[in-house]
């Protein structure tokens, strides 16, 4: 089922004429006949959950927005997609910029935001031009600007480029950066819904979340909620990468199993060169890594599906998270220690340095992991790593500390023997990888 990407292959869909011809902006026409509160209600009914990683219900978030008289409200689109392994927003903005603009217009109308910002990651250097072009075209055709469709509602969208910081994807750091300050996360409360951009009530939503508003308005919230399963309604973009035959962005309705997603030809198309599956990071680099046996089946032996509930089944002990949908697959030739080092290095580099556990702890974890990876580790280092991550997790201002701690924790929890092998065989570990060990491919065990 495709709701967002169904017209992605239409020629010229990036530009206004083709987009409009294929039914674009019809949802705006529909939405402007509704009352703003009804749109919020419709989004609530749809059960749409934030696609940026945390999975917080969007309708609920919108209803928290304070609406004091005489103070402007802002909608900010979080396009600072910097999580390693996640590239779904880039695809959406690059090929369907008008879909995002359309979603932004409806959302701005629903929330009463006359000035709406797209905060885009600095590394996406070519995408602001695409978005500016789309905004220009929307302006020319009366979808933006003053008195849109004669409703008396004014709205303008601005694109703001970041300077390339992962931390600016955190909503309060994003707001600080948008205000022109150093991108340090703010201490919450107050939450942005009360005091956000320039101390005004602000909603920050992910690109995919805002794009999903368009099908919700087109088909109605109740219809949208019928897609998917349980509390995971609608469709989700998954950016699959790593050791798979067909890496790319896939739109799934959240009823397919992880096994089907990895092995079916419709999606990832299996693992190349006949290798076996070792592990997978199912939701972007900050979620816990899962070994193959726990990825395809939950600890209770049930099939694991690609949705919020099923992926987090078993908590962090035997489960993971849906996250932002960055699906990274590791085959038997990949080294988990090296993978963890790469992630730790990333979080060390991206820590803002505001609060002490994250500032000091991320660098420490990186150095200890470096020693283990390059054959200079001690067995006590593994326990040390566990202790460091435990002291970072939950003690920081923003979730970056958790994001840095979880991958290390999960790697040690599930792949401790690989870490120990690295320490005990320092020379051998430099020339070959640990391999699969007992994390056999769950498919073969079943067969």
């Amino acid at each position, binding site marked *: 089922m495709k709701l967002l990407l169904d017209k992605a292959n239409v020629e010229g869909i990036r530009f206004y004429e083709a987009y409009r011809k294929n039914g674009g902006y019809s949802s705006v026409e529909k939405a402007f006949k509704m009352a703003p509160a009804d749109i919020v209600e419709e989004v609530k009914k749809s059960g749409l959950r934030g696609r940026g990683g945390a999975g917080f219900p969007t309708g609920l978030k919108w209803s928290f927005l304070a609406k004091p008289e005489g103070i402007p409200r802002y909608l900010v689109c979080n396009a600072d997609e910097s999580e390693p392994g996640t590239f779904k927003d880039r695809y959406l903005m690059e090929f369907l910029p008008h879909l995002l603009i359309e979603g932004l217009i409806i959302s701005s109308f629903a929330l009463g935001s006359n000035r709406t910002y797209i905060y885009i990651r600095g590394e996406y250097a070519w995408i602001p031009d695409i978005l500016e072009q789309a905004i220009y075209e929307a302006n020319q055709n009366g979808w933006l600007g003053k008195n849109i469709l004669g409703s008396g509602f004014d709205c303008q969208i601005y694109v703001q480029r970041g300077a390339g910081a992962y931390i600016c994807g955190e909503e309060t750091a994003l707001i600080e950066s948008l205000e022109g300050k150093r991108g340090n996360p703010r*201490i919450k409360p107050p939450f942005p819904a009360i005091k956000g951009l320039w101390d005004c009530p602000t909603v920050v939503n992910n690109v995919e979340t805002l794009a999903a508003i368009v099908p919700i308005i087109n088909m109605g919230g109740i219809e949208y909620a019928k897609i998917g399963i349980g509390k995971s309604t609608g469709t989700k973009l998954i950016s699959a990468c790593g050791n798979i035959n067909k890496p790319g962005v896939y739109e799934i309705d959240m009823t397919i199993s992880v096994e089907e997603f990895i092995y079916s030809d419709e999606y990832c198309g299996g693992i190349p060169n006949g290798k076996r599956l070792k592990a997978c990071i199912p939701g972007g680099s900050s979620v816990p890594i899962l070994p193959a046996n726990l990825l395809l089946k939950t600890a209770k032996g049930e099939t694991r599906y690609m949705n919020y509930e099923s992926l987090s089944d078993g908590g962090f002990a035997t489960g993971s998270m849906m996250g932002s949908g960055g699906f990274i697959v590791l085959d038997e030739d990949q080294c988990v220690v090296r993978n963890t080092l790469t992630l730790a290095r990333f979080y060390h580099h991206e*820590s803002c340095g505001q*609060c002490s*556990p994250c*500032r*000091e702890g991320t660098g420490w974890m990186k150095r200890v992991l470096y020693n283990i990876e390059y054959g200079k580790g001690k067995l006590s280092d593994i326990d*040390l790593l566990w202790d460091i991550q435990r*002291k970072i997790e939950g*003690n920081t201002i923003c979730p970056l500390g958790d994001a840095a701690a979880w991958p290390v924790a999960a790697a040690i929890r599930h792949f401790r023997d690989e870490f120990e092998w690295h320490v005990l065989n320092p020379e051998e570990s430099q020339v070959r990888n640990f391999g699969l060990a007992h994390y056999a491919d769950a498919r073969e065990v079943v067969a």
Partner: protein
Amino acid sequence: MAEEVKKEVPQMFKVTIDNITVEVAPGTSILLAARKIGGDVTPPAMCFYSKLKGSGGKCRTCLVEVAAGSTADPRPMPKLVASCRTNVMDGMIVKSITSEKVLDARKGIVEFLLLNHPLDCPICDQAGECHLQDLSYEHGSEGTRYEFQRRLFEREDIGPYIQLHMTRCILCYRCTYVADQITNTRVHGILDRGEHAQISTYISKAIDNDFSGNMIDVCPVGALTDRTFRFKNRVWFLKPMDAHRDCDKCCGRVTLWNRGDEVFRVTARKDEWGEVEDAPDGKPGWICNTCRFDKKKTSDWIIEGPRKIKRHSVISAGHYVGTKKPHETIAEVMGGRHPKLLMDIHTVSEVNKNSVHLSAIEGPATAEVFNNGKGTVLPSPK
């Protein structure tokens, strides 16, 4: 009429911290409520400074566990919260030192703060009045598990009066708040991010401002030091005296740090939490650079008297104010005699032997030396 009276009396919130209940005004943070109780219950704070707006929340040493959010919503908070930036609610139950989780987290934070700290207390001017020193004595472990090189920076003079020792900095951001809120321009701030974050001035600009000296007072560690005082003396050798003068820029109420008649340095008056005291007009008693750096003669000041420092502070070492001589009981039991040395005569039975030569025994003489007969083998003095 009755309603109007109710409005005038502000409703007080009852908050229980470590089983001690205290009533505070709404809008008070947990940390300030705990300071009202005082003692060990008060969480330590490295970055929070109640006189600086917006400070706090960064060092995470003041983390506490909230066991019950409020009477209306008694759910516990899932994570430890920074007590300096979390406001109390009526009926809130907070655990500070009664929670294992908090103590464990605090120990971890101290370790993180000391990770890149050079621990050069023996040559640091802040030693003796350093918050990080106190914190690590109270909550830290005896050793570090960090085996890598610490980050190093060159010392830097930021302006005519202040030297920056970036290696000691714990990035509490207090000095940036001082520059923002007390001085009229800020030319310094945080450069770079993560572990590389450092305090520095904008393209080697000098900090030249009438109130810049207050940055030294708020610095919890020895990162910002007074260039007119560096290496001049140890704080515990100095006698703090309260003094004042008529100053057209500031309140003029200071503490002089004297040795004899010589004034070694001038600081603002600090309360027991290391923050500046309020001036009589109710505003924080920040002092200007003229008072701090230029008036270094006792004749410039009207001295009010010695400043009271907490008895267990190292600054009070050797100053026994208000102590009582212990009641002697030995003379009573010894029948009026005042022996200079007391020994347990039951274990040292053969001390009086002529053959024992005390000066010939290696190491300290103990009962065993005598009882094992080691002392007796020595030749008697000729």
